[in-house]
């Protein structure tokens, strides 16, 4: 054989071997597998989304439905791992984990094919609840501590290499279980924690923290105990628990407050979480009786059929997610400009309390002023216009609540929920407690015919700092 030909042959073989090695290193596809987050059954962990940080010894395994032998522990290098979130192309996973027992929870990303893992956060406190944002960023919650406001999980976002970490919520509300909706917003569980603990609600906000607003609240005595999941046909699935038990329920994205459906009526047992699975089928973490562990089932809400997908007698399944490519949510633009120090807030009429007040014939006293109350002190009192409107400029990212006052400074209504306005955010509302279903009146508020009233705070007034005197400028 000619020397030249031999050389070419050798080169080809070497190239082939290198390519094979690279292919082998990149790992196989995990498409179709189910990632299961599970926690040892004998632990003292209270299986609640608010207590996820206490899930000691938890792990994330990958399994193929129907093949129980092929269960792979993806997080064996970690002491504890929870909250798997699969990227929209189905190739990567975000999760929260701690390497050693005493560590803080941090967010990691794993390439599902190769198992290679990268740490994304290096927080001094617990970072959990990761969720992919549409393009190159992710959201998570981070524990913030303060001697006044105590422990509070704020929402943050960061680039997928961990850089450019930004806090996006600023009020004394704690958040859990972030879901990114198709419309690009976060949907999350929320509870007010200061001055008193409030009832759990579901809230939506844009990925820059702006336009935080109410989405859903369970009836008295019930609460949502799972991460929310959005289906292809615009339903939001959740697990709701009350004294009688728990249910899989759905809400219509279009009409969340009036579309509650119990999908598991008549099913005895306890549900813990829900996830998308196949067409018309969902995955649920469920146990039939108190003595059993939570296992993973495929559930058909139409005929009520339940088929076991995964079981481990030593672990309770917390949640599961199917590995596949998903439609990417909308990548929402942001009006936030961090160099700006303030934002704007307008209200059309503080004496309008929504259609229910018309229905119930409310006869509240007329309010003439608003009082803007910060965490520690009153930030300002502003006279409203004749039409009940106000227009104020507030320091960005400083939490406040509003209550309305009569001419004699008696409280008429409030204080309402916590607000914060992001830098350069402009926000508006119709009236007081009018809810998320009230469209505005098409009328120009008198207040916007003038410059906004500036509520000028001392710059040290923050959620986690001491009281300072305020200045109010007309």
């Amino acid at each position, binding site marked *: 054989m000619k020397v030249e030909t031999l050389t070419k042959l050798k080169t080809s073989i070497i190239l082939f071997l290198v390519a094979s090695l690279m292919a082998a290193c990149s790992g196989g596809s995990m498409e179709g597998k189910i990632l299961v987050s599970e926690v040892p059954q004998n632990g003292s962990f209270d299986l609640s989304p608010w207590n996820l940080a206490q899930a000691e010894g938890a792990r994330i395994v990958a399994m193929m439905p129907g093949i129980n032998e092929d269960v792979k522990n993806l997080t064996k290098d970690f002491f504890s791992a929870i909250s798997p979130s699969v990227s929209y192309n189905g190739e990567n996973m975000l999760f929260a984990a701690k390497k050693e027992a005493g560590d803080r929870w941090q967010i990691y990303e794993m390439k599902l094919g190769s198992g290679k893992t990268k740490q994304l956060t290096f927080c001094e406190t617990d970072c959990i609840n990761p969720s992919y944002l549409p393009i190159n960023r992710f959201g998570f919650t981070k524990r913030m501590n303060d001697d006044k406001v105590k422990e509070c999980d704020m929402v943050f976002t960061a680039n997928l290499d961990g850089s450019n970490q930004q806090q996006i919520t600023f009020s004394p509300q704690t958040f859990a279980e972030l879901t990114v909706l198709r*419309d690009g917003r976060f949907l999350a569980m929320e509870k007010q924690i200061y001055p008193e603990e409030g009832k759990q609600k579901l809230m939506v906000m844009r990925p820059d923290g702006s336009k935080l607003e109410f989405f859903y609240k369970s009836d008295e005595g019930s609460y949502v105990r799972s991460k929310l999941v959005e289906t292809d046909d615009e339903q939001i699935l959740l697990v709701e628990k009350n004294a009688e038990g728990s249910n899989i329920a759905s809400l219509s994205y279009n009409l969340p*407050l009036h579309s509650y459906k119990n999908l598991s009526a008549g099913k005895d047992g306890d549900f813990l979480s829900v996830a998308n699975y196949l067409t018309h089928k969902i995955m649920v973490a469920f146990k039939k009786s108190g003595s059993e562990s939570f296992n993973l089932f495929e559930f058909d809400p139409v005929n009520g059929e339940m088929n076991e997908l995964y079981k481990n007698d030593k672990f309770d399944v917390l949640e599961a997610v199917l590995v596949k490519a998903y439609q990417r949510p909308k990548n929402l633009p942001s*009006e936030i400009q961090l160099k700006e120090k303030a934002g704007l807030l307008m209200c059309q009429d503080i004496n309008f309390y929504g259609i229910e007040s018309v229905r119930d014939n409310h006869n509240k006293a007329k309010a003439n002023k608003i009082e803007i109350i910060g965490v520690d002190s009153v930030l300002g009192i502003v006279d409203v216009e004749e039409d009940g409107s106000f227009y104020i400029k507030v320091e960005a990212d400083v939490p406040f609540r509003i209550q309305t006052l009569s001419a004699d400074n008696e409280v008429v209504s409030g204080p309402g929920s916590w607000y914060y306005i992001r830098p350069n955010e402009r926000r508006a509302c*119709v009236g007081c407690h009018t809810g998320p279903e009230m*469209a505005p009146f*098409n009328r*120009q508020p008198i207040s916007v015919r003038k410059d*906004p009233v500036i509520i000028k705070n001392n710059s040290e007034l923050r959620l986690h700092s001491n009281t300072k005197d305020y200045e109010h400028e007309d």
Partner: protein
Amino acid sequence: MKTKKLYFILGFIVVIGLVIYFPGRKAAREHVNYMTAVEDHPLNCVSCHLHMIDKGPIAKWQNKDYYSPYNLVISNDGKTLYVVAQDADKLLVVDVESKEVKQHIQVGDFPHSIILSKDGKTAYVSNQWADNVMIVDLAKGQVTDTISTGNGPSGITLSSDETFLYAVNTFSSDLTVIDLNRKQEVKRLPAGFNPAGISLSPDGEKIYVSSRRGRMVPYGEPLVSEVTEFNSQKNRVSNILGIDEAYMMENISFTPGGDMALISLIRPKNLVPMVQVERGWMMNHGFAVIEQTGEQRIVQFLLDEPNSYYSDPYDILVSKDGKRAFVSSTGVNRISVINLDSIRYILQNYPEEELAFLSYDLSFSRHYIERRIPTGAAPKGMVLSADGSRLYVANQLDDNIGVIDLNTLESLDPIDLGGTQKVTVARKGRQLFVNAGGTFQNQYSCYTCHPDYHEDGLVYNMAGKDMGRNVTNVQSLREINHTAPFKWNGLNQSVYKQDGMRFSTVLTRTEAFSYPDLDALSSFILTGIKNPPNMMYNPKGELTAAQLRGKEIFERTVDNYGKEIPEKGRCVTCHPAPYYSNFSFEDVGTLSESDDTIKFDTPHLNNIFASAPYLHDGRAYTLEEIWTKYGGKDKHGVVNDMTKMQLNDLIAYLNSLGSAELEAKEQEVLKAGVK
């Protein structure tokens, strides 16, 4: 030797290529960055330099002819559909059973509506850009008569005895009454502002005409649009009803029992600073009910839901049993099915105070919406089959007729009209333009503020910075190619920038259009939107005596006292033909206290008669007011020496200005010294 020469030539070419490529590429990158206002748009010359060509053989080659079905009717036996193919100027005769188009009947320019005589033998077609109605003998398949109307005929209806035909003139805002025996217009009655919809009550006594635009009022005053009521026996206006906070009332239907009239409408929030889209803060969509019994109250209802909006309702139709209404929402490709018994219950049982607030409650539609049925692209007019079991809908931008089974409320296979299957770039752009998918929760489309690709006559508070400042009048998109920059402040050098990232941040508040979509949208906006012919003031390109006098005033260089007018004070300096703009920035003395200090981009004046109100904030309701109310200091041209007659002549001339293409021809003729 030969090989060496070859290598040398190749090497030389490569070197030259590199020399051209790098600086050339850099120049191309800078050019594209400037035109698109982003830094990563692909360097694709075709995006602009092919798809933005609006004239000549290349434009012709890359565009296709579509039918764009708009309205339709069905024969009495239910076997034949008659479809107005608006972009083809044709009436298509479609066999329902075979789903084939059997005949094409040529009608007039830009046909709008069609109705049939009671015996089904005759069709009447309004031709909006021809200012006439045609009578079509359906047996012969040909037009037998053409009757002149007012300007821009749209909705039409017959009197109950078929003696009279009524044609709504959208552009001249009046109603033509045609005596069908004499086959001519016998009366012209005022009919709101920019009207379109018309319906005869079941008892034949009353005709309602609905307006698309609100009454012109100073910014800040409530928006009210009119429904004009006519006595069809006496052919005169009998009442004017105000519909609060509503406009774009495209169509009307009476229930068969005559207890209600329903009107499709949009509820804009133009007086509210546009700081968010959530919670219905930009546009709501719904319908009004005008009770025909009792107190004849007007109550509005929404189609929308808190997180989902049903943009641009067009047609509204009532089932034959009066129990359901159907509304086509062009912006979201849906038909909403309304339970009218629920509406009746609400009207009878809810207290007055609460009825007034229902059109602000985004969740209330759950009480009467039975179903949302998906359709093809841009559903417009609808018609019921003879037996009421099927609903046919014109899917304007799919060139087909949707078919819905009203027993199951499900879509069946559509009827393909057999037109071009290829979707050109500009056609895709048009689909994007009318679809609300480019805004958060589908709350509105480009078409919502730019109906007919024109403008909606409203002034908005875009609140780009502070609230309440810089209110702006919507500008027309007709023939804006070659008139950059855009926006009143002229900050947008291209449509790309206008509809790109900033647009998404402050207006649509959802993901920006992708580059291919932006290419298509820009292509449509710059090449696909034509001015209607100026039938009202200059139908044949021949100026009247008053218009000619006005032209002289427009071009004058000396005032009435013989004093030379400075160049800046001459109309023709800032407004030269053919676009009547020099595309530069001027302060014409119209800044208000709530405006930032800027100079305005000089708008082009083609078809200016159709763009009221005027000036950047819409404060001038007529062209005349630009000078009589707001021109006191001669900053907007030297005018204060003129007599009223001269001003009238100037206005007459301005009203005569038409499409730039026609104006260019006029200029060529003038330069040739023929005139």
